C-alpha cells in the first residue's frame, strides 16, 4: 500500500506502523462519573467497519508523524490522509 503523507508525499506503507481505529484519539475524561465505563469502551470496543475506516498510522521509519488515514477495509482504497495532531485538535483535544 501507499500512504500519501500530507507533508512528505506518497510513501510505502511498510515505512509505517499501524495502531488501530482513530477513535483512540478520543480518550475519555479520567474524572468523569462514568470514567471506568468510558475507558473500557475506549480501550476495548471497536466499530470494525467493513468499509471506510479512520485509522492511526505512525511514520516510524520516517518523520514520526502520527497520521489519520481514511481507508476502505474492503478495497484498501485510501481517500484521505491527515496529520493526527490536526485531527486531535479538531476533535477538541488540547493539553
Amino acid at each position, binding site marked *: *500500500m501507499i500512504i500519501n503523507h500530507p507533508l512528505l508525499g506518497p510513501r510505502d*506503507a*511498510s515505512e509505517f506502523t*499501524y*495502531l*488501530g*481505529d482513530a477513535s483512540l484519539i478520543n480518550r475519555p475524561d479520567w474524572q468523569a462519573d462514568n470514567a471506568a*465505563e468510558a475507558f*473500557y*469502551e475506549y*480501550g*476495548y*470496543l*471497536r*466499530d*470494525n*467497519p*467493513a468499509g471506510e*475506516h479512520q*485509522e492511526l498510522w505512525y511514520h516510524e521509519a520516517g518523520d514520526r508523524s502520527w497520521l489519520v488515514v481514511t*481507508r476502505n*477495509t*474492503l*478495497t*484498501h482504497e485510501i481517500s484521505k490522509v491527515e496529520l493526527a495532531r490536526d485531527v486531535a485538535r479538531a476533535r477538541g483535544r488540547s493539553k
Partner: protein
Amino acid sequence: MRYSGFRVIKEALTGHKGWKPVWREPEPKAHYDIVVIGGGGHGLATAHYLSKVYGQRNVAVVEKGWIGGGNVGRNTTIVRSNYMLDGNEPFYEFSMKLWEGLEQDLNYNAMMSQRGIINLFHTDGQRDAYTRRGNAMILNGADAELLDADQVRKEHPYLNFDDARFPIKGGLVQRRAGTARHDAVAWGFARSADMHGVDIIQNCEVTGLRIENGKCLGVETTKGFIGANKVGCAVAGSSSRVMGMAGMRLPIESHVLQAFVSEGLKPVLPSVITFGAGHFYVSQSDKGGLVFGGDIDGYNTYAQRGNLPVVEDVCEGGMALMPMIGRARLLRMWGGVMDMSMDGSPIIDRTPVEGLYFNGGWCYGGFKATPASGHCFAHLLAKDEPHPVVTAYRLDRFKTGRMIDEKGVGNQPNLH
C-alpha cells in the same frame, strides 16, 4: 451412509454409483429450535455436537456462501494445545482430545496427523517463558517436552545451526500436536450434522437479526425470515458485521492473515516447526506442499488478500531458519480474515440480547479449536450455561479485567 475401506472397494467394483451426497440441500423451514449462523468449521461443529451429543435435532446452519469457505478452508491446518494460561489450556486440551477421536466420531477421515510441533527458542527469556508454558500444559494434563539445542539438532538437522543470526537454543515440543486436513474437518462435521437431521442451508446470507423487546426471534436471510428460539453466531472474521446487526460493538478487529503453500515435495519436515526469532511457522502436508505462514498484515481489513511486505517477511523467516527451502517454490498465497480480539483469546458467551449467543474472536488460532468450540458452543446453546472449560471466555472480561493474554501485548489486536 457409513464410510469404510470395504465400502470404497464395493463402490469401486460397481462403478461408484452408490455414493450419495454428503449433505442434503434443504430449503429452510419457517422455524427452528436453534439456528447457527455460519457454515464454517465452528458452526458445523456446533451443529454436529448439538445434534449428536446434546440431542438437538431441530437445528439449522445458515451459510452465506458454500460451507467450509471461510477460515476453516484457508488456514495452515495446525492442531495443538500448547497454551499457558488457565483460561486457555483446559479448553485447548479438551479440543485436542476431541481431535484424537474425531475420525471415529465423524466416520470421516480428517487425516489428523499427530506429528508433533516444536516451538523454537533463541533466548534465555524465551526459554523461561516456554518452561512456564510447558509446565502449565503438563499440569493441565497435556504433554510437553523441553529440548536443548543438541536434541533439536538431532530431530531437525536441516535447521540453520551454523550461520544463524539468532541461534537456536532449544524448543518446546508437543508430540500429540500435528495437522489435520482442514477441508475434511468441515465436510466431516457437515456430513455428521446432516445425518443427525441438521439442515445445512448454503447460499443463505443473514441480512438481519429480528430482535423484539430485547429478545432475538430469528434471522432475516436472503431466503427469507427464519425463526429460532436461539440464534448462535459463529462467523469469525465477520463477527463485527453480524453482531452489529444486533447493535453490538465487539472487542474485535478484523485483520488478514496470509498463508502460503509450496509446490509438492518429497517428505522433508517431520513435524510442525515454529521459529521463535521471526515470523514463520511451517509444516508439510500429506500432498507434499510446505504449508507456512507468519504474522498478520497488521491493518484492519475484510479483504481476503494481503500485501508483499508480509510475504517477504515470512519468507525471510523461513530462509533464516531453514535455508534448504530456498529452491522450493511458493505456489500459492491467500488470506483469511481473522477476528482479532483484544486479548488474543476467544469469546463463547451469551450476549445482552436474550436468545442470541456469540462465538468468535479466534484470532489466527481457530482451526485447532474447532471441535471444542463446537462442543462448548453447543453446550451453551442447548443448556444455556457455559461448558466448564470455557467459563473464562466471557464477553465482559475486558470490563472486569479478566483478560486472557498469552502474549502479554494488551488491547492492541494486531499485536496478538
